């Protein structure tokens, strides 16, 4: 059983601290544009939705990477299973961006693809979430399935920020 990043929509207030700490951790600046986690605002429904890589069991990005830069890494001790992009191996061909059906791989800096790596098992966003809307925890297989089907059923919508 591995931990996953889960978000409680009832608790998220849309403060976007997670975006700031994420960009700081990985890109050395407080800049939501450079965050790997993104909080979307559904004005009509009154919800904020944090979105981040799901570290899929069958990761599309990993399968398609022509540079072998994406690997699934396990840390049994910490209970972490992370789909990670090696910045060194990535050539920036963006095939993973084409492959990710959830839009969770980004092109932040020139030259390589970027996405959540679970901060080595201690995600910054979770630590900074004052409302504890973001959690990094073990979940049951059925919960995992729910997340997956939610993501898949998702009502996709374009909206202005």
């Amino acid at each position, binding site marked *: 059983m591995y931990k996953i990043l889960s978000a409680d929509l009832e608790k998220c207030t849309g403060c976007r601290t997670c975006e700031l700490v994420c960009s700081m951790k990985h890109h050395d600046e407080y800049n939501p544009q450079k965050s790997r986690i993104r909080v979307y605002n559904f004005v009509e429904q009154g919800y904020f939705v944090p979105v981040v890589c799901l570290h899929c069991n069958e990761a599309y990005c990993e399968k398609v990477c022509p540079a072998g830069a994406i690997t699934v890494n396990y840390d049994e001790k910490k209970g972490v299973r992370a789909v990670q992009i090696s910045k060194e191996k990535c050539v920036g061909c963006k095939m993973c961006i084409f492959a990710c059906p959830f839009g969770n791989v980004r*092109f932040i800096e020139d030259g390589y693809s970027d996405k959540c790596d679970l901060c080595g098992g201690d995600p910054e966003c979770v630590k900074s979430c004052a409302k504890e809307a973001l959690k990094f925890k073990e979940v049951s297989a059925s919960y995992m399935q729910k997340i997956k089907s939610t993501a898949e059923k998702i009502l996709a919508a374009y909206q202005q*920020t």
Partner: protein
Amino acid sequence: MSKSKRLVIIGNSAAGLSAVKTIREKGCSCPVTMVSAEECNAYSPVLLTYYLAGKIQRESMFITNEKFYQDYGVKTIFGKRAVGIDVSRQVVQLEDSREIEYDSLLIATGSSPRMPGNIDDKAGEYIAGLRSIEDADRIIKFCTTGKEVIVIGAGLISLQIISALAGKGAKFTVIDILAQILSQNMDSDCAAIVERRIREEKQVKFLLGESINKIQRKNGGIFVALDSGKELTAGGVIVGIGVVPNINWLKDSSILLNKGILVDDHLRTNFEEIYAAGDVCESKNIITKNPGVIPNWYNACEQGRIAALNMLGYKEKYAGALNGNITGIFGLIIATVGLSKLPDEVSEELKIVDPARGIFRKFIIREDKLLGATLMGTKNDIEDIGIIRNLVENSRDISQFKDYLANFKLNTGRLYFFN
């Protein structure tokens, strides 16, 4: 399925490797033999233009090493070309007259650059398509002589090559038979933006609407005559006019061929135990439902996976191949999926164009289904291509958010998840 089934894969690239991984991930312990014409471990052709640009070293192009084949229990026969299949005896014949027996066979021999017909034999060393590392080395050689380089075909690979080498001394003249560049990938409005962007680079000239009459060797270089009467000399010629599946060696095998190997919905050929996947096969286009060769890495991986599952006895159906691509040239990121032009009168298009910023977004819609999209911009302007690909590939009903697609304002649009 009996344990001793001998699986043979011909081709050591996207499709072949994806098949190997699938076979072992499914826990199958059958003996697997992989044959490849190239001596080396697998490398990705997709990375060749990054190698040309000097962004990566030769070694970084390799996606497997000896350990990979050991770990996956693959017997390798590399540096030997397959020259035929005797379907009645179930053997693959290699160029050194060796015969490899199979119980189930996957043909994943890919494709090669298409070459113009009217080339004089002696011109060979100055002409290159781009597919292999040797091709890349040849191109680097004649692009660093300071002489003019002629590029035939204004498709994505040609433009990627030029983008990789521009600024390294060579001057390029791009010739295409059509008046529009990237005609296979996008509509003329989007192509015009790209063309304008490239013309800003002083070292690239276009000769559009021109066809090649002959190509000859001349004084340590190349002479090209166009049908219009124009004549050019150059240090070398790069050819990017599409690819042809590597099927010549199957001509006498009684496997059904058209442009590529014909396969059914399970990627099986007309022989029960022979499958084909990747650039070499003609599979069903997911949108038009017509068979065709849709050569890209993404399809090759997926086809390798599906073919392997069927070889193992899982009755897995292949949904179909999707044309699409994502690439960066001259500072623009271009992502396409599915159709780029209206297929009929009932289809409609949504289009957002901002030539000044190099932004272009176009969606082709028919009856609440997305048939295709073209996205162009920089960095995060194309980040939603994966979601859009998914909508096209799975033919999702987009009626609920069609308006959002339409009203999407430049630079602020993002896809939102909600349940």
